[in-house]
């Protein structure tokens, strides 16, 4: 039987060959230290992943038996439905497109994608990391929340408040 030195995570085994696993930036060697807020992935993280997976699958199964996915009549190029709507997540854009196809369909989506990609290169100050709605980041969080709310409002407007001829309707009437 191999002897295991339980004091160390990785035993000092003379027969072991070592490979370089990773280079880390740091100011002191941390070999042999056990950072106190670390726990083993097995089982702590894996059990959480497994449970989430089980919940997701169970939820989907229940949903699949309770609610049928919609299926309308067969496609007919001569009879567009009134109104014709894009998938829900594009309805915010379609709402904008109803004002101007170029601005809503091309300009704004392009700006959103470029803007999203640039965020981490503009807002680089290492403050408020690892905390929900950190006070130090109130401005950035406020802006992003506004963006999400505006997109959400447009989607709700396009989904529920637009009827025949894309005219404004009130869903509860």
């Amino acid at each position, binding site marked *: 039987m191999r002897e295991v030195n339980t004091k160390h995570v990785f035993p000092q085994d003379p027969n072991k060959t070592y490979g370089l696993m990773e280079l880390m930036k740091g100011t002191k060697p941390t070999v042999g230290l056990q950072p106190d807020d670390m726990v083993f992935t097995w089982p702590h993280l894996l059990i959480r992943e497994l449970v989430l997976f089980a919940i997701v699958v169970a939820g989907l199964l229940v949903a699949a038996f309770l609610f049928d996915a919609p299926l309308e009549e067969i496609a007919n190029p*001569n009879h567009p439905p009134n109104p*014709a709507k894009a998938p829900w997540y594009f309805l915010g854009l379609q709402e904008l*497109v109803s004002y101007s*196809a170029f601005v809503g369909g091309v300009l704004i989506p392009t700006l959103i994608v470029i803007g999203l990609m640039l965020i981490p290169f503009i807002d680089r100050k290492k403050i408020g990391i690892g905390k929900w709605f950190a006070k130090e980041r109130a401005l950035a969080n406020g802006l992003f929340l506004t963006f999400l709310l505006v997109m959400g409002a447009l989607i709700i407007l396009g989904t529920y408040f637009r009827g025949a001829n*894309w005219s404004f309707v009130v869903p509860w009437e």
Partner: protein
Amino acid sequence: MKKKHVRTQQPEIDRRTFLTALGWIGVGLSAAVAALGNLLYLKPAVDYGPPTLIRAGKPDEYKEGIKEVLENDRIAIVRDKKGFAAISVTCTHLGCTVRTSDAGFECPCHGSQFDNDGLVTGGPAPRPLDWYQVSVAPNGELEIDKSVKVTPGTFFTM
């Protein structure tokens, strides 16, 4: 001792840098050509869509002042005092199929309205409905070429 040719100046770039650059240019060019080839492959070359040349029957099958919609060809044949016209029934906004109305055409999707000549009278559509070229085929039938657009208002006269 015979003096060898001596360079008085270091060249701007040495041989190794030059050859490396040349190599990279070669790789870049091949990649560009390959990318272009792949894009061209994906560009639809054969038109598998509906045919563009349409025979629409004898001219006298159409009555004056009536818009006759050929559903499968997505056009309306209009006969007027001035002659014949073939107007597309595909909305210029986002591609729905428009219906005929008393005033002209209207789109059910987002409410664009067009007059009898397909000019926009309301709604989000950015331009008038397309007009296609009309001619008469050798057998006397009207022939519409959907690949040729004409300016709205150009009627075909016999």
